[in-house]
């Protein structure tokens, strides 16, 4: 199968790759670019473990083709922290013990960041419905929701503009 050459931007860096037509963006990130932070939990867009943003829009990277990233701006979990400074969501997830096994955590963080960019002061209801596309089997979501609430409060306070 002939590969397609793709030029894109990932976490602010220019990236070029060749991928097959049937490869998903998730496959490309994980298998060609060694960005294994996005996980494949289902491959059908039902679990959100592969969440990334494309041009700021939250997507399941298992439902996007690698070739579709041409000319786009892709953001993954690997770009969330700035150097040694964690994003407030990352810190709050740790402080609230909002992860147990951690497989769903990258997807939740990417999704929660996309939420807070749209809505800096979400209600618990809004958080729960925004994150309804991300499955977690360990926590029962309680501590995840609290971590997002706490991060949002901190970010509104302006102490850690992100």
């Amino acid at each position, binding site marked *: 199968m002939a590969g397609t050459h793709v030029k894109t931007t990932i976490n602010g860096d220019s990236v070029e790759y060749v991928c097959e037509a049937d490869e998903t963006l998730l496959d490309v990130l994980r298998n060609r670019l060694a960005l294994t932070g996005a996980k494949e939990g289902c491959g059908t867009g039902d679990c959100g473990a592969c969440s990334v943003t494309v041009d700021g829009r939250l997507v399941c990277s298992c439902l996007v083709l690698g070739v579709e990233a041409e000319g786009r701006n892709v953001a993954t979990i690997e770009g969330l922290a700035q150097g040694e400074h964690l994003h407030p969501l990352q810190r709050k997830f740790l402080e609230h013990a909002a992860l147990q096994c951690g497989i769903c955590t990258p997807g939740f963080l990417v999704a929660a960041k996309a939420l807070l960019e749209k809505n800096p002061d979400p209600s618990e209801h809004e958080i729960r419905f925004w994150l309804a596309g991300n499955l977690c089997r360990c926590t029962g979501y*309680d501590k995840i929701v609290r971590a997002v609430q706490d991060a949002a409060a901190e970010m509104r306070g302006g102490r850690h503009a992100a």
Partner: protein
Amino acid sequence: MPLDPATQKIRAFDQVGTRPLRPDGLDKVTGRARFGADATAPGMLVGRILRSPHAHARIRSIDATKAEALPGVKAVVTSKDFADRSDDLRDILVNIMARGKALYEGHTVAAVAATSASVARKALKLIKVDYEVLPHVTDVDLAMEPDAPLLHDDLITSGVEPVPTKPSNIARKIEFGHGDVDKGFAEADLVVEREFKTEATHQGYIEPHACLASVGSDGQGELWVCTQGHYMVRDVCAQLLGMDVSKLRVTASEIGGGFGGKTTVFIEPVALALSRKAGRPVKVVMTRDEVFRASGPTSSTSMRMKIGVKKDGRITALDALLKYQGGAFAGAPVDYGGMAGVACYDYPNIRVVGYDVVTNRPKQAAYRAPGAPMTAFAVESVIAEIADTLKLDPIEMRLKNAAKEGTKSAYGPTFGPVGLVETLKAAKAHPNYKVKLGKNQGRGIASGFWFNFGGQTCVSLNLNIDGTLALAVGTPDIGGSRASMCLMAAEELGIPYENVRAIIADTSSLGYNDVTDGSRVTFASGMATIHAARDAIKKLCGRAAKVWGIPEEAVVWEKGFAKPSGANAGNFEPMSLKELAANAAKTGGPIAGHYEYNAENAGPSFATHVVDVEVDPETGFTKVLRYLVCQDAGKAVHPSYVEGQFQGGAVQGIGWALNEEYIYGADGRLQNAGFLDYRIPVASDLPMIDTAIVEVPNPGHPYGVRGVGETSIVPPMAAVSNAVSHAVGIRLTESPMSPPRILKALGEQAARKAG
């Protein structure tokens, strides 16, 4: 505050019971943590598995010549690549690669290793399997019929006298109890008997099974795998492949959930066989579809539960018939499930009869307190109905019968100190129990039990030159256990938590450890960590004694320092762990602590759950309004992760109660093998999950710790059912209580009223 059995003193803790950040946390919030599918190796091939499309079929032949000839294909394996055996690993061997018959839809029949995923997929299509389709059975009651399609023509029911002469699908009959149930029911003022059914559910870990195998022509191999027990994987795989155990080194990756489902092998021996044949590393990752069809879900069950009581609510007898199907091989957890499911109460007379039944479904695997939620659903539903009939407060009714220290359990042992009464009192005192309910709303209560397990455990602790510690444990960390290990090592040595780093050692670096199961890790690896720290302390005191020129017995360890034991021992400045570490080379070399044992006295954990729901009578949809978990942790080492276990187990149970089920078509094929149609709870389905940690110390652990991981899934199915039943005014007896089932029950009720 726990009593330390070693010293018989009530002790306070400096660090145990605090909530520090977990040591593996940063990696997990930055995407750096390496899970099963995240590893690569030079020259790595992609492995893919061909699975039976039939629920039951004879395999007449497999022709892989076309697949083998496809460019890029480096190996194809079938059952011919695994030597047959007649020992207790045979079921595992046949489950990982069908021999002669495919026993369920999804059963592995062949596998390929190729240079890319697309070549591997093409190769699978080129493998020709000639099947003779056979009649199948997936329902437990139908599988027990005398004329049911037979899975195994050599399966003779065990536990029955006289021994049956003909094979059947009933693998085993179990029976336990005490007293005389007929006498007990004769003494009862009220007897309630109901039938129950529960559908099979899946553990639903978000990480599919994944491994990277590398076997060389020198017979040595390495395996990277997401598993709850890498020693188990090593031992089973080495035997199935005819390798020396010492030549297979298994490293446990970070594990993306297991809940019991990763306590056996599926793809690992296949990946090793492919790698050995191809002479290259092979990575195999299941798709979600494969996880549903071919890993291990729970049993589905069919049960009859009869309980008799006096007017005051005191139980006189329980008689239960439990039928659990466990998929294509023997091993449905009807024994442990039955024992745990009835364990909350003190019965003068009890009889439990259970059947372990095989069907054309994937072999069940452990799922969090395996087997217990189903029997508990039946017990707690009947208890609730009795409390309703007798107009007793459901918590008071349970308190009247609650198992406590000295109660003889139905499964044999007499309980030591246990916390059921405390969880019931905590539930009654909680504000949730006092909230007034509205229209279409109902409250449900249920209690639950799990044995907890100790098991074979080995821990090493190495002191570094700067006084920090490297702690090697052999039980994969599935929910934050490394944090608890670090806390216990730090507590014992009297040094900061941050100075201890725990890792999960590979199978060649540390002695054997049983699987992470039975809620055993914080208890057993934790106790081993404490003893390894004490071993190191003894050596540290010895080094200080040597420096001071006094006897070893004259040195004590206190909060991170070696000190002379008193004025008679001499007047020396206390020596810190850091100083002792820095001087180790001059005082006798490296300092390490080690401990290996078979842990016993795990101490069971009881829980009581209270849930309020609202049922929409038009749609049959149930909304969980509030949920409370009260559970005995003995001593909560890291309370955040204890709460996490409570919350996670409760929500898995809510899913089991309301939505989750394996749905089979008449063709014996699973109809909902994906997260869209097999619906696990999502954030918008749930409220916050309130928790109350009860601490009744376990005398079998130096800090009083009990396992907490599994009990939390035992009460929810019953608690939710009791709440839904109260909300709709109909006793529901089948799980899941999904909207169609509730609507059906409402329709039948309306018809009864009209008729």
